[in-house]
Structures are given as structure tokens and as C-alpha cells.
């Protein structure tokens, strides 16, 4: 479908006079330029207004900081270090906790989703408990984990796992349930055993659901790790934030936020690349628009 209609478009375009083509290209360039201009304009206006408001005293820079003081804080962290040691060490600790929590939580979520999605009775029995567990604010569990697993990495990983699990589970479960009946019947007629139906039909068709959930769940893993560090730890970005808070260091809190944002964006880029590779079979309807 897609490739043939593209070929058709190309054929039509080739017959158009040059000036029409050039005009279209110019219009497209103009439009892209406009989008880029407004993107930059918005950030300049927001940061500029913030900076001016802070300098003129419209807001108190002691509580709300200013872009310039945040940038200065980041520079110090990156070049000299933070009150609790090298920034890179803190990033590395938080990253490790998030990645471990993300991987363990996703694997458990996928397995649970597939098992319950494939077993009607089991899912009918357990759905109610999953719903209850899902409605409880899970961040509170962080306190339990710090008590049980101590100030080290384990308590943060555990909280990240819990945060990730439910999201991935819900998506995997839904993905399994949505697997096309015709594909499952076809596999059975072709000779697939129930296990082969699961591995070669159900899991691949749930894959787009699962991959979609992984995007959000890495941010949740990060939240789990940071909140865990907040509640009690010896290193990590969460501790950095808690320390800055204790010192009434507003620029420090914002600077830590920016570091976390950078980590989340980086992880998202990695996941997007992985998703592209895994879903080559899908029609290019979700082509790169950004």
C-alpha cells in the first residue's frame, strides 16, 4: 500500500513543472523555519521572563532561583563537583538503579501479562487483586523497602521494579488479549502447539503494546529510584535533591531536575531506536515527524 502510493506520488511529481516543485519545496522550508522559530521563541521568552522577574524582585530568587543561577550551579557541578561528590558518580548510581528496576520490572510485567492474558481463569481470579494493588499509591512502599533493604541500591531498585511492573503488566496483558483470533487459529491449523502459539503469535502481536509501555515505564523507574534515594540513601540524584533542599539551595534542585530530564530523554532515544529495529515489519505509518 504505502510503497505503491509513494511510487505513484513520485510519478506525478516528476511530471510537474520545475517551478511548481520548487514552490512546494520553498513552502515546506518556510513552514519548517516557522516551527523552529516559535520553538526557540517560546523557550527564550519563558526563561527571559523568569530571569527578569528574579532580577527585578517580582519573584524571590532565593525560593524560585533564576535560569542564570541554575546554569551556574550546573557548571559548578560538572566541573568542580556537588556537595556529596562527583556529579557523574551520582548520575551513574541513579542510572544503575533505574536500569535494574526497569529491566526486572519489565521482564516480570511481561511474563505476568502473558501468563494471565493466556489463562482465562487465572486472570478472572487475580484481576481484582491487580486492580487493588494498582490503586494503592506505590511510592509509599519506598519507606518499607528502605526499612527492609537498607540504604543501599536494593531498596531503590525494588521501588523502581514496583513502579514499572504494573504499567508493563497492564500493557502486556492487553496486548495478549488483543491478539488477532484469526492469526491464532491460523497458527493452530498450521500445526502450532499451545506454547508455539504463545511464542510465535501472541508475544509478537503483544510486542507493540509492550514496547509502547516501555517508553513511559523508564520515566517511572527513574521516579522510583529518585524517590527511593530521597527517602534514605548515601548517594544518587535523589540524595543530591534532598541535600539541596536541606541547604535551601533552589538552583541546586532545578539543576538536579535538568540532569534527570537529560537522563530520561537519553533513555527515550535509546528505546525509540530499539523499537524501530524490533518493529520493522510494521507499515511506516508512524514515520519520523519530529
Amino acid at each position, binding site marked *: 500500500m504505502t510503497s505503491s502510493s509513494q511510487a505513484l506520488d513520485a510519478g506525478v511529481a516528476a511530471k510537474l513543472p520545475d517551478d511548481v516543485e520548487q514552490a512546494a519545496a520553498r513552502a515546506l522550508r518556510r513552514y519548517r523555519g516557522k516551527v523552529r522559530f516559535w520553538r526557540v521563541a517560546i523557550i527564550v521568552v519563558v526563561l527571559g521572563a523568569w530571569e527578569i522577574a528574579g532580577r527585578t524582585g517580582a519573584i524571590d530568587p532565593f525560593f524560585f532561583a533564576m535560569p542564570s543561577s541554575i546554569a551556574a550551579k550546573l557548571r559548578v557541578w560538572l566541573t568542580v563537583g556537588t556537595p556529596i561528590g562527583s556529579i557523574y558518580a551520582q548520575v551513574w548510581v541513579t542510572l544503575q538503579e533505574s536500569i535494574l528496576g526497569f529491566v526486572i520490572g519489565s521482564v516480570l510485567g511481561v511474563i505476568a501479562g502473558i501468563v494471565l492474558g493466556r489463562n482465562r481463569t487465572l486472570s478472572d481470579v487475580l484481576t481484582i487483586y491487580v486492580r487493588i494493588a494498582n490503586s494503592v499509591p506505590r511510592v509509599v512502599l519506598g519507606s518499607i523497602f528502605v526499612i527492609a533493604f537498607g540504604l543501599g541500591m536494593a531498596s531503590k531498585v525494588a521501588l523502581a521494579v514496583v513502579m514499572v511492573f504494573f504499567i508493563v503488566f497492564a500493557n502486556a496483558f492487553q496486548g495478549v488479549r488483543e491478539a488477532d483470533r484469526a492469526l491464532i487459529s491460523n497458527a493452530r491449523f498450521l500445526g502450532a502447539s499451545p506454547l508455539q502459539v504463545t511464542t510465535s*503469535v501472541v508475544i509478537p502481536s503483544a510486542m507493540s503494546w509492550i514496547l509502547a509501555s516501555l517508553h513511559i515505564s523508564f520515566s517511572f523507574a527513574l521516579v522510583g529510584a529518585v524517590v527511593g534515594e530521597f527517602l534514605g540513601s548515601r548517594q544518587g540524584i535523589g540524595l543530591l535533591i534532598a541535600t539541596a533542599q536541606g541547604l535551601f539551595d533552589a538552583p541546586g534542585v532545578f539543576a538536579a531536575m535538568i540532569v534527570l530530564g537529560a537522563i530520561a530523554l537519553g533513555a527515550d532515544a535509546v528505546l525509540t531506536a530499539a523499537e524501530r529495529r524490533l518493529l520493522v515489519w510494521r507499515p511506516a505509518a508512524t514515520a519520523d515527524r519530529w
Partner: protein
Amino acid sequence: MPSTEPAPAGAPIIELRRVSRQFVTPDGRSLLALRDFDLTVRRGQFVAIVGPTGCGKSTTLNLITGLARPTTGEVEVLGRPVDRIDPRVGFVFQSDALFPWRNVLDNVTAGPRFRGRTRSDAEAAARDWIERVGLAGFEHHYPHQLSGGMRKRCALAQTFINGPEVLLMDEPFSALDVQTRVVMQDELLRLWESTGASVVFVTHDIEEAIGLADRVYVLTARPATVKAVYDIDLPRPRVLSEIRYDERFVAISRVIWNDLRRDAIALA
């Protein structure tokens, strides 16, 4: 008496005897889909089942595959009562049932791989079938990159590679445009004649049924039962694009249409 011996030529391969099938709808009412249904398919025979939309044609196929059980009556396939999906039965679906995440080659190898053949063995057989259905050169295309007709070719290769003795087809070409449909009908006859499978072909298109089949079962509206059976004595091999102008074909169509007229008017 049912026997597990391979049936000789002309022996019944599929037998439905006075079969009825009742459903219970979600709101608790019972619905009779089939009533006192008799059907016999002999070895190597091409049988078409025609009937108004929603009359229970697909139910018939589900009974033959074992996906549905008869409420009363008996269903025997390949000499024994049906209790599960038989590996000797192949099924071609109305919808697109190719695995979208597998390319053509991997779709066609699916059956042999599920059945435990080695990858190289399965691929050799698959390349042969891909060639036979005219998809050579498209081995590494994904289904979404193929046209509707090419996807059907792939589905046929995927089913034929398992060497089914019984081939069940549920309106397989109904989603295709008219020209492609005729091409695929000829393709199907060519492939079928080389394998000798027994076919049950469900369709709502009477011309398609007459052109393809040795015997046409016409069903009544729900609850479906056999309204009439027609033996089609058109010589084989047939070419669908030409047969529609054949005098015998026209005569048979006229007889069946006349018989159906009253039903069709009642339904319209």
C-alpha cells in the same frame, strides 16, 4: 464403520450426518444455526457451499475442523469423529491471517517449522511453494508490502506446504477485486489439481461456486439446511476467465438462480 486406514479414491473424506448446531446468545436465547444438515465430500472432490450471508456456512467449516461441536448428529473427517484440529486439515481464512511480523519466506515456513522440520528443510520446501504460487523474488517482503492478491498467494503457499488432505476455505477471495479474484480462482484450481486434496469452499458467490466446484450445496437462510445439491459436470481443467461464457456454465447458473429466486426475493 469408521476406519483409520487411508481412504481409497472416491471414499467419503468428510461426512456430516443430520447435524444440528445450536448457539446460546449472550442474552441467553438459543439460536439454531444448522438444522438436519447432511454433507458428503469424497476424496479429491471440490465441494462448494453457497448460501445467504450469515446463514451458517462458517459454522459448517467450524464443525469440520472441530472448533465447534454438533449439538446433534455426527461429523466424521478422514474416517474418524472429529475431536481436535487434525494436522491433515488446512484452512484458508477470509481475512488476512498472515503473520504481519514475518516476511513471505518465514510465513510459508511457519507450518513445517511448527511441525518440527529443520529450518533448511522447511526453507527449501517454502522456496518451492513460493515459486509455485508466483511469489518468487518477494521472499523478504513483509505482508504490508504486498498487494491483496499477493497476500492470498502467500496464504495459499502457507497452507499447501503442509500437504493437507482436506482443504477448507472460508470465502477466501471475497475481499479481492473482481479481476484479482478470477486470477486467484484459476491459481487455486491449478494448485489443487496438482495436490488432489478434498476441498470444502464456502462462498456467497454462486458463479464462483459453479466455476470451481464438482458439487455445489445451496443452503437456506438460518437455520441453514441443504436446500439443493447440484453436480457440476463442466470438464477440467477449467479456466475461470473463460468458463463464464461456456454454454453449460450459463445453463447451470440459470437453473440454480431460478431455484434460488424465491429465497433471494424473500431475503431482499
